[in-house]
C-alpha cells in the first residue's frame, strides 16, 4: 500500500513537477532571445489543451451514440470547441511563453545585375552559332502551334458548338394539347381568372427550355394583342413561354391586382431579376432587365373543350443570344 502511494506521488511529481533550472551554462550568444518565464501561463496552456482533449473525445462519443449523432449542433459544438481550445492554447503560447522580440534585418536585394547579365549571355551564347535563326524560330512556332491546335481539337467534342439553331427549337406544334405536370389535359373551363397555371406539351419532355408555358385567363375586353394574334386568346385565355427572355429563369410570380383602380395591371414576373411582362399586351416588357417580349403561344379550344396549341411561339424561347431573331421559333 505504502509502495503504491509512493509510486503515485512520484508519478504526480514527474508529471506536474517543474523542471529544475537549466544547469548547462548559458551560451554567450543566443540565437533566440530568452523567453519570459511564466509558469502560470504554462499551466493555462496545459488546461486549455486538456479542455481540447475533452471536447475531441466528446465528439467521438457523440458520433458513436446514434441518438446523439443526429444532433448536428452537438457534433459542431464539440469539434468547434476542441479547435477553439487548441487555438487559445497556441495564442497563449505565442503571447506569453515564447520570445516575441522584434528583429531587424535588411530587405533582400531587389536586383541581381550580374546574374541577370550572366543569364542573358548564357542564352545568347548558346544560340550564337545558328545561321538560320529566323527559319528555325518559324518552324518551331509552327510545330508548337500545330501541336497546340491538335491538343485543343478534342474540345470540339464538347459541343455541338455550331448547331446553334437547336437553341430556337421548341416541342410545340399546331394541335398539341396542353397538359399539366401529371399529363392531364387542361380544359378551358379549368382555367380561372386571377391565378396562373403551368402547362407542358403533351407527350414531350417537360425539362426542355421550350416546353413550359404559363396560362392565365384575362378579361377579353382588356386584351391588347397585336392584330396578327387576334385569334390566339380564345375566351381571353393566353399562354406564354414560362422561361424568362432575360436569363432563363422560370417565371414563377403572377402579380394580380387586388384593387384594380389603384394597383398596376396583371403581370408575369420573374423572381430572379424581376423582369415584368404584360400578358394582356403580347408579353411586352414593362419593367426589369429583359430585352425581349415573352414569346406567346397561340391557343385554340377543341371540340372537347380542351386547350391545344394553335402553332409554335411568336418568337424564340429562352434568353437572347447573338443572332437570335425576333421571328418565329422553329
Amino acid at each position, binding site marked *: 500500500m505504502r509502495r503504491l502511494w509512493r509510486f503515485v506521488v512520484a508519478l504526480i511529481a514527474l508529471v506536474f513537477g517543474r523542471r529544475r533550472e537549466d544547469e548547462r551554462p548559458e551560451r554567450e550568444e543566443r*540565437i533566440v532571445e530568452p523567453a519570459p518565464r511564466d509558469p502560470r501561463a504554462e499551466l493555462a496552456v496545459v488546461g486549455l489543451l486538456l479542455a481540447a482533449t475533452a471536447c475531441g473525445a466528446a465528439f467521438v462519443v457523440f*458520433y458513436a451514440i446514434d441518438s446523439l*449523432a443526429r444532433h448536428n*449542433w452537438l457534433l*459542431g459544438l464539440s*469539434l*468547434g*470547441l476542441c*479547435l*477553439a481550445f*487548441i*487555438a*487559445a*492554447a*497556441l*495564442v497563449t*503560447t*505565442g*503571447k506569453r*511563453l*515564447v520570445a*516575441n522580440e*522584434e*528583429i*531587424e*534585418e*535588411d*530587405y533582400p536585394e*531587389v536586383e541581381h545585375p550580374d546574374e541577370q547579365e550572366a543569364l542573358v549571355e548564357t542564352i545568347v551564347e548558346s544560340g550564337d552559332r545558328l545561321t538560320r535563326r529566323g527559319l528555325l524560330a518559324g518552324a518551331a512556332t509552327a510545330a508548337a502551334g500545330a501541336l497546340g491546335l491538335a491538343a485543343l481539337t478534342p474540345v470540339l467534342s464538347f*459541343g*455541338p458548338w*455550331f*448547331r446553334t439553331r*437547336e*437553341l430556337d*427549337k421548341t416541342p410545340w406544334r399546331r394541335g398539341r394539347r396542353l397538359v399539366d405536370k401529371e399529363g392531364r389535359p387542361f380544359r378551358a373551363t379549368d382555367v380561372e381568372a386571377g391565378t396562373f397555371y*403551368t402547362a407542358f406539351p403533351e407527350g414531350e419532355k417537360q425539362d426542355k*427550355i421550350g416546353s*413550359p408555358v404559363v396560362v392565365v385567363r384575362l378579361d377579353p375586353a382588356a386584351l391588347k394583342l397585336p392584330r396578327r394574334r387576334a385569334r390566339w386568346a380564345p375566351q381571353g385565355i393566353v399562354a406564354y413561354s414560362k*422561361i424568362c427572355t*432575360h*436569363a432563363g*429563369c*422560370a*417565371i*414563377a410570380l403572377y402579380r394580380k391586382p387586388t384593387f384594380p383602380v389603384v394597383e398596376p395591371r396583371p403581370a408575369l414576373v420573374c*423572381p*430572379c431579376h*424581376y423582369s415584368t411582362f404584360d400578358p394582356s399586351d403580347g408579353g411586352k416588357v414593362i*419593367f426589369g*432587365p*429583359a*430585352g425581349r417580349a415573352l414569346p406567346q403561344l397561340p391557343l385554340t379550344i377543341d371540340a372537347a373543350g380542351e386547350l391545344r396549341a394553335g402553332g409554335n411561339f411568336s418568337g424564340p424561347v*429562352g*434568353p*437572347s*443570344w*447573338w*443572332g437570335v431573331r425576333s*421571328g418565329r421559333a422553329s
Partner: protein
Amino acid sequence: MLRGLVRVLDQRSGAAPFIQKTLRYLFPDHWSFLLGEVALYAFIVLVATGVYLTFFFEPSLARTTYHGAYEPLQGVPMSEAYRSVVDISFKYKAGLLIRQTHHWAADVFVAAIIVHLLRIFFTGAFRKPRELTYLIGLLMLFITLLEGYLGYSMVDDLLSGMGLAIGYGVALSIPGIGGNLAMGIWGAPYPGDPAFESRMYVTHVFILPVVIGTMIAVHLTLVASRHHTQFGRGRRRPERRLIGVPTFPGQTPRSLGLLFSVAALLFLLGGLVQINPIWQWGPYETALGTNGAQPDWYLGWLIGALRLVPHFDVVIGGRTIVPNPFWGGALFPLIVLIVLALTPWAERRLTGDRRYHNVLDRPRDAPGRTAFGAGFLTWVFLVFVSGSADRAYVFFNLDYVGQIWFYRIASLVAPFVVFFITRRVCRELQRAEQVEERQEAAEAEARAVEA
C-alpha cells in the same frame, strides 16, 4: 536526440541552411497582415471538408426516387446528385456538419480575400516590386467566385438550377460567340447534356482547386522572396530595413492559433448556424422558380448588376447583337477585374513613381489612390446592395421599382461624390499632420535654444 534528427535530415536533404533561414524569416507585426492568412486557412478547411464530401456525392443527373430519412421528400423524383446531397445531410453521421462547414468556409474564404484585397489596395502594397503577387491574388479572387458558383450549382436543387439558368443566359449573351459557347459548355440547349454535371464536378473538385492551390503557392513564394511590406513607424521610414517577428518561435504559435481559430469558427458555424438547407428548396425543374431562396453573398454584385440594367437588347435589323445580361453579368465583372488589374501600372503612370516600395502608405498618404478606391468601391458596393432590393421590399415594404431607380442613379452619382469627399478628407488629414509636425519642430528648436 534533436541534434541527431537534424543531422540525419540535413545529410539526406541538405536543407538545414534553408530551414534555418525560413525559421528566422521576419513577419512585421500588424493585425491587417493576418487577413490573407485567414483566407489561406479557410482554403485549407475547404479542401479538407471538400475531400470528405466527394466520397459521398454522386455527380449524376440520372433520375431516381427519394426513399430516405427526410419525410417531406418521400417518393419525390429527383436526380442522383440531389439525392446524394440530401443523404449527406441526413443519412451519414456528421455529413451535415461537414457540408455546412464547407459552405460556410466558402463564404468566409471569399470574404477574407476581399478584405485582404482592400488592405492591399488602400495601403499601396501592390506597388513595385509586388505587382505580380497582387495580380495573382486578384485572379484568384475571380476564380474563387467561379469555384463557389460551381459548388452550389452541381447539387441540382432548385436554387442551383436557377443559378445555372442565369449562368446559361449570361454565357448566351456574350456577343459573337454566346450561342456557340453555351452549346459547347452545356452540350445542348438548357438544361443541357447530362455530361454537363460531370463537367461541373471535375472543374469544382479538381481543376479549379489545383489552379487555386498552385496560385496560392506562387503567391506565397513571391511574398517570401520579396519579403513582407511594413508600415513606417512615426517619421522613421525604414525603406531598406525590415522589422518583424521571426517565423519561429514568435510567429508560429500565433499563426497556428489563427488557423485553429478559423477552423473553430467554421465548424461552430457549420454546427450551429444553418446554411443552404437544400432539402427545403426541393429538386430543380426547368419550370419551377422560387422567390426568396438567396444565392451566396458573393454573387450579390452580379445579381444586382443584372437587375439594374434597364430593359433593352441591342438589336440591328431584327438580329440581336448584344443581349441584355451581357452588361451586368459579363461586362460589369470584367470591368471591375480590368480596373483592379491595371491599378499598379496606371498608378505608376499617373504619379510617375517608379521606385521600389517596402513601406506601406496609410490611406491618407495617397489621397488620389484612396479617393479612387473609395469611389470604385462605392460603385461596386451599391450594385451589390441593389441585389437585395427584393429582400428590402419583403422585410421593410420599400417599393421595389423605386429602389431600383434609386440604385440606378446612386450608382452613377455616388462614386464621384465619394471620390471628392475622400480626397478632401485625406488632404485635410495630411495638412493637420504637417501643422503638428511643424509646431513640434519649432518647440524642439525653442527648447534647444533655451538649453
